[in-house]
């Protein structure tokens, strides 16, 4: 089309050519469908299906091959139904059916040739054609090459991917022909891999080059036995396999790093609120975990109020969780913490009492059972970068969210009036008051801010785990360790400490298991604090 457009140049001619082309196309399409319908009569279709009615799986395979090679329009659907075990024959009669739903006792069925509704059938009236594993593989190969010859690029690519490891002597030639006809670069590449794998199995040493660095598990599984031999081919395969393994190892490391950062971002989110209340204000808030829980419950409640709209609910939950948890924080500061100023151990005990009360409150008001918050569609699933590396979307989102919250908080402390006042009050309370800073108001707002950030952590957590009364409890020990490890009063320290603890934990896990990894990290941090009580980033000057 484009060629024609360029060569003609003039508008009218172009229009004319368009209409002519369209007409031609339509006519051709019509004739194709007519010839196809004419090519296979119902009797022929019946004969094709009849061939499947045999006990021998070999014969069934041949029959399936015949169907695939025939011109029957319905062949894809037949083969798919056969693959799913839903193609069958009437027990006392000659009709063929496709079972559309075999979950119940009565199956809705349609006629296999006309696709017209045929009422219901049961196990007794319809005999489904059985297949075994070899046959299944064969049918899958057939289906793949069928969809290769038709459909758009995406479906052809999917078909080509299915073909890897499925190329056999039966279809090798047709796949090779299709590869030469294929226009899309990516589909052709995938077909090359499928063919190369087949060639290697046939002993072709040059084909190995195509497979170098391929991360597909099927390639690895096929090459492993080949590499076990003693021949030149085996040695070459060994080297290719080695290359594949080391590449996989790198992606595995990237995956571990991602999981570590994701676990770390949760720690940072949980701890960053504490970094403000404990680190900046010096208030030990043992109810911090419960503020996280409140944020998570807010998300759940907003979602209950907006059924069917998890995306909107989540968007509302971010400010909602912040405000609700922040309000709780302000109330806690006004009623309890303010009276315990300068007595950190007492503050610790009183806020611990508050945490017990809040937990029990949630248990009484909602229920002791866990609640499930559904994630919006765009947070479900994974971002498949390649065969060896896929990033779970919700974890990725939490990681980004954590960075955004951190950046926001940092900017708030650095550039706003409130941040300036908070830093002033922390550094020298009396002097700040003398300069006109209302210290008690700053206390209240700072604590509310820390609590609000805990609420944000709760919103993020609700996307990863179930929401329950004990949600926050598990984070309190970790959060404090992160803050202390990073260096009290230092937001950057909290970020680095949380992320590194997350990564260390993930790196240790495959060796020693989840529980022991956690213990090692805990003990490691305890020892580190003994060695360096000021944490990674010691505060400058005489503040400690």
């Amino acid at each position, binding site marked *: 089309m484009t060629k024609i457009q360029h060569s003609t140049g003039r508008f009218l001619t172009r229009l004319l050519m368009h209409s002519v082309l369209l007409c031609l196309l339509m006519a051709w399409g019509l004739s194709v469908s007519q010839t196809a319908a004419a090519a296979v009569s119902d009797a022929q279709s019946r004969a094709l299906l009849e061939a499947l009615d045999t006990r021998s799986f070999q014969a069934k395979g041949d029959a399936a091959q015949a169907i695939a090679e025939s011109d029957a329009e319905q062949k894809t659907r037949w083969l798919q139904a056969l693959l799913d075990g839903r193609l069958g024959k009437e027990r006392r009669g000659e009709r063929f059916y496709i079972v559309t739903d075999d979950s119940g006792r009565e199956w809705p069925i349609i006629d296999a040739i006309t696709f017209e509704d045929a009422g219901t059938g049961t196990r007794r009236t319809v005999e489904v054609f059985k297949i075994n594993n070899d046959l299944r593989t064969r049918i899958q190969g057939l289906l793949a090459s069928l969809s290769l010859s038709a459909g758009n690029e995406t479906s052809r690519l999917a078909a080509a991917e299915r073909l890897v490891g499925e190329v056999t002597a039966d279809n090798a030639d047709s796949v090779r022909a299709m590869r030469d006809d294929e226009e899309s670069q990516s589909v052709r590449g995938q077909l090359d891999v499928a063919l190369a794998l087949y060639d290697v199995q046939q002993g072709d040493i040059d084909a190995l080059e195509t497979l170098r660095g391929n991360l597909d598990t099927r390639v690895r599984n096929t090459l492993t036995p080949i590499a076990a031999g003693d021949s030149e081919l085996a040695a070459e395969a060994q080297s290719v396999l080695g290359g594949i393994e080391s590449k996989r190892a790198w992606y595995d490391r990237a995956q571990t790093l991602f999981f570590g950062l994701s676990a770390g971002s949760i720690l940072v989110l949980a701890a960053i609120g504490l970094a403000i209340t404990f680190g900046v204000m010096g208030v030990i808030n043992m109810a911090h975990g419960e503020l996280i829980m409140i944020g998570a419950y807010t998300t759940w409640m907003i979602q209950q109020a907006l059924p069917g709209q998890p995306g909107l609910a989540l968007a509302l939950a971010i400010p909602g969780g912040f405000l609700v948890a922040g309000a709780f924080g302000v109330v806690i500061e006004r009623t309890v913490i303010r009276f315990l100023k300068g007595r950190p151990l007492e503050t610790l*005990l009183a806020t611990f009492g508050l945490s017990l009360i809040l937990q029990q409150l949630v248990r009484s008001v909602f229920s002791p059972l866990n609640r499930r918050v559904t994630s919006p569609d765009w947070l479900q699933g994974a971002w498949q970068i390649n065969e060896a590396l896929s990033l779970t979307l919700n974890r990725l989102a939490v990681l980004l969210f954590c960075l955004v919250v951190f950046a926001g908080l940092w900017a708030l402390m650095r550039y706003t009036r409130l941040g300036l006042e908070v830093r002033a009050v922390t550094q020298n309370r009396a002097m700040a008051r003398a300069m006109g800073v209302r210290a008690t108001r700053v206390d209240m707002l700072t604590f509310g801010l820390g609590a609000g950030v805990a609420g944000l952590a709760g919103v993020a957590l609700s996307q990863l785990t179930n929401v329950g009364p004990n949600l926050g409890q598990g984070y309190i020990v970790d959060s*404090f360790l992160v803050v202390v490890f990073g260096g009290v009063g230092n937001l950057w320290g909290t970020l680095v400490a949380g992320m590194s603890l997350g990564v260390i934990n993930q790196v240790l896990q495959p060796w020693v298991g989840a*529980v022991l990894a956690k213990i090692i990290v805990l003990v490691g941090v305890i020892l580190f604090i003994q060695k360096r009580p000021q944490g990674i980033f010691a505060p400058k000057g005489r503040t400690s």
Partner: protein
Amino acid sequence: MTTQTLLHERDRSRQAFLSRSTLLTSLVLIVGMLVVLVLNALPESSAWHVSNATVSLLGKYFTYMLLALAVDLIWGYLGILSLGHGAFFALGGYAMGLYLNAQTSPLPGWQSIMTYFPVAALAVLLAPGLLALVFGWLAFRSRVTGVYFSIITQALTFALMLAFNRNEMGMGGSTGLTRFYELLGFSLASEGMTVALFVASGMAVLLAFWLCRAITVSRLGRVSVATRDAEARVRFIGYRVDHVKLALFVVSAMIAGVAGALYVPQVGIINPSTFAPLFSIEVVVWVALGGRATLYGALLGALVVNYLKTVLTGVMPDAWLFILGGLFVLVTMLLPQGIAGVISTWRGKRHDGEEQDRQEVSA
């Protein structure tokens, strides 16, 4: 200068081991124990009869009181708040549990040495003691104090809880140790054993009380109180503050271990939940309610809170956490000196040694 010296002299005269409160507390403990024993011996038909279940429950309270003493010794008189004393309690308990298990079936590996009572008794003291020694040495040497210390003790008990939950530890995993039948050749189910354990726990409380009292009136105790109030000053005078802290911390851990060892045969089970941070912090509220820096306050607090817990969890189980949480908040805000503080105010300004110590107790 002169007044300070005078004050010092007066303090010394008042810091006698046998103060009025010490005598009174000992007397109450002994008489209380005897009364329970007599009432227990009454025929069951009598209205005054105290059942074996109650005796066993009181025995359990005694072990809690022992634990509260241990916490009070370092929190009240040294100013270090341990949120992980449940770990020492549990370690003593596990040592006892291993010994009790060994009475019925031989234990595998190194644990087989726990078959012998003297070894087990030594382990009850040494396991918590050594942990406290190592942990305390590391912490006090690098001057980890205040809230930092509290947080890492909490992390310690949390890590131990995770560790003891693992089956590979050989400590029964999450189920813990149970199925105890015999102690020193006597059946644990027998009536005599219940009474014997009650008496043993009571005696342990009495002995530990005297020990703590002796420590607090000694020079060591005076240095520790000084450390609590002005650590830097004590260090500059030339005392090894870390040694003082370590000594009291280890003694305290050992008392907690004994408490755990007495607790296990009376309750019949020890599992990792004893390591849970919640239990350790509950102990702190016993001491806070009773009144820290008074030994009798710790005993009283443990008794009151646990009696409340027994009654309330039976009547309205949902309310217990509200009440416990409320106690934490109210005691710290309204009763910073605990019940003992109320008693001393009520008795007017008639101080004796202990109340002197308690003045200006602030973290």
